């Protein structure tokens, strides 16, 4: 083994640009990494072959040499009809999976004409009230051939039911359907905030979907356990890693408590991570995530199937890293972030459009974002070799370090009594608020440079064309909803909603009742109102 002269290589010298180099998780970087930093390194134990336990090198043996990641651009705005046109545009340009962004009133389970929906209809995503909107959304798109991801949480079971019935009307049975519902309520309390019910009944609804899909929609991913929103809310990469996996463990435990066998449902859990600017930190985060998950599933939860231990994930580049100033610079940021996701072994990727700090993406911007993925895939060469960064002293050291720091968080969460008690104690919320304030202070003191924002600024007015949502969308959506209320069999709707309420008071699985309700065109608002009667609603502490 080569002798290393530490005095020459490891100590920072006075001539450096900064006193201290830290990544976004506040982990300090040394100038150089050497074999000394990974003394205990054991290839078989720490990495293993790709596609094999502990999956550090990747979820599958030949990764992108077999099949490229799914290029899945998140999209939804205005009416179902408008979004349907955007999906067809994306499919024409080579997108390989759909991803639905819903309007806020849908996300919160309010009908478009509810007072709470004022000003929100179709603004942040596609407005869906009933099965009828869902039929329009996927009109002309064969649901047995495409996989669809739906970013929906509190009402996830309702949107899944609508998807199942829409496919049924296209002539496809549920066994053929492929896709994901986000269905990750824990991170809603922690970060994204689209909760409706208190945590306990929310967990019941999630386990209901897990149980139902295991029997009826076997190819469906029942939860997309998400770090994305935790990160966007201001967490560090380590916090994103730790809180997301802790949520994952909580779902596994909840399903096992229901009496489900871990190997029957764990293969249908998937993950969703953020990709921010610090390239190596992101790559190592994904590698550490796979290893931690595999170890826990095997050692703690007794999983036997390889599929149960294999962490698969979707990545979206970091919305918060985009600047409203000189928006074209975002194309460069997204390229770096997309590259990190690919080198970290993502199964699917959404690259943000350069105009997303200003509005929902225009057609031009979304096309460049998709082209960025295609360039990474076909021109950069990085997809031709599996986990090419493995074995780097720095990468392996940082992967270990992130795992270690995540483990320290798992201990803290355990001390607090688990994820739900920690949410109720505002633990995650405070950690994230502290991290985001610290980050903002670093930007303001120019400790971190945000190009075009706190340095190299051009004081030019922004000339980027914006996507504008027509206020008429709300009017038409409301008219259609009112029309539908007159057309459907209201007696039947009423009867089914009563049955749903009764079931909610028992311990029965609610999915079959929800499927029946949407089939009769009960609205998402009506179904949620029925469940609120039984479950109540959640109120969070307004801490900052």
């Amino acid at each position, binding site marked *: 083994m080569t002798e290393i002269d530490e005095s020459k290589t490891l100590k920072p010298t006075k001539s450096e640009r900064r006193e201290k180099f830290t990544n976004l998780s506040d982990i300090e970087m040394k100038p150089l990494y050497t074999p000394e930093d990974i003394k205990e390194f054991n290839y078989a134990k720490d990495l293993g072959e790709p596609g094999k336990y502990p999956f550090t090198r990747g979820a599958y043996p030949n990764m992108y040499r077999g099949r490229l990641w799914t290029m899945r651009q998140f999209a939804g705005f205005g009416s179902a009809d408008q979004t349907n046109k955007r999906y067809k545009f994306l499919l024409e340009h080579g997108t390989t999976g759909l991803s639905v962004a819903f309007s*806020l009133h849908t996300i919160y389970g309010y009908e478009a004409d509810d007072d709470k929906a004022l000003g*929100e209809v179709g603004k942040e995503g596609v407005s869906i009230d009933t099965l009828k909107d869902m039929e329009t959304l996927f009109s002309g798109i064969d649901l047995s051939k495409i996989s669809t991801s739906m970013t929906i949480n509190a009402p996830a079971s309702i949107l899944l039911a609508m998807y199942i019935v829409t496919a049924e009307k296209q002539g496809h049975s549920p066994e053929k359907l492929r896709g994901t519902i986000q269905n990750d309520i824990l991170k809603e309390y922690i970060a994204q905030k*689209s909760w409706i019910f208190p945590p306990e009944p929310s967990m019941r609804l999630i386990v209901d979907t897990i149980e139902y899909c295991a029997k009826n929609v076997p190819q469906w991913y029942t939860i997309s356990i998400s770090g994305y929103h935790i990160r966007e809310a201001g967490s560090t990469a380590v916090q994103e890693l730790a809180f997301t996996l802790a949520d994952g463990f909580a779902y596994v435990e909840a399903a096992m408590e229901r009496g489900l066998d871990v190997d029957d449902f764990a293969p249908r859990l998937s993950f969703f991570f953020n990709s921010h600017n610090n390239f190596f930190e992101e790559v190592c985060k994904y590698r550490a995530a796979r290893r931690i998950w595999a170890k826990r599933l095997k050692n703690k939860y007794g999983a036997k199937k390889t599929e149960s231990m294999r962490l698969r994930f979707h990545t979206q580049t970091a919305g918060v890293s985009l600047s409203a100033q000189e928006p074209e610079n975002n194309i460069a940021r997204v390229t770096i972030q997309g590259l990190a996701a690919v080198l970290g072994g993502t199964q699917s990727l959404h690259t943000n459009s350069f105009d997303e700090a200003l509005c929902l993406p225009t057609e031009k911007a979304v096309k460049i974002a998709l082209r960025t993925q295609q360039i990474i895939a076909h021109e950069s060469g990085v997809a031709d070799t599996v986990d090419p960064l493995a074995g780097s002293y720095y990468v392996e050291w940082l992967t270990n370090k992130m795992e270690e720091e995540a483990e320290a968080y798992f201990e803290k969460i355990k001390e607090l009594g688990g994820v739900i008690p920690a949410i109720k104690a505002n633990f995650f919320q405070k950690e994230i608020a502290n991290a985001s304030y610290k980050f903002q202070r670093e930007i303001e003191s120019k400790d971190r440079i945000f190009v075009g*924002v706190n340095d190299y600024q051009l004081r030019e007015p922004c000339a980027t064309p914006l996507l504008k949502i027509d206020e008429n969308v709300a009017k038409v959506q409301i008219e259609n909803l009112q029309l539908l209320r007159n057309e459907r069999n209201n007696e039947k709707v009423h009867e089914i909603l009563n049955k749903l309420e009764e079931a909610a008071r028992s311990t029965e699985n609610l999915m079959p009742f929800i499927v029946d309700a949407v089939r009769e065109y009960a609205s998402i608002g009506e179904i949620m109102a029925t469940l609120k009667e039984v479950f109540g609603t959640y109120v*969070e502490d307004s801490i900052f």
Partner: protein
Amino acid sequence: MVEQRKIKVLVCKPGLDGHDRGAKVLARALRDAGMEVIYTGLHQTPADIVSTIIQEDPDAVMLSMLSGAHNALCPVIMEKLKENGIDDVLVGVGGIIPDEDKTFLEKNGLKGFYGPGTELKTIVEFVKNNLKR
């Protein structure tokens, strides 16, 4: 010695928008600048906000809106303030507010319009310099 009265600010999240990172960071910055800060939390209707204003009597109200609902909700808040005879409170709005909407909001009595990338001290100064009482 007469103690100088602290500026009291209400930071609000109107509508269904859950993006509260900016609002929380701003709330801390205002507090660190010596102001008394109340944060409403999420999902506030215009009626909720006005009733909090009546109860708390802040000098300034800062609305954080990133969902595109500003044109629909801000004028309702201003209308309700007027109905209650409140005209001495600074109402600022920030978040994602396209340039073309600013004139409309200005006509309705709103100010500020600070977006992503704004330095916190700019907003702190804005509050200090635009108080109506």
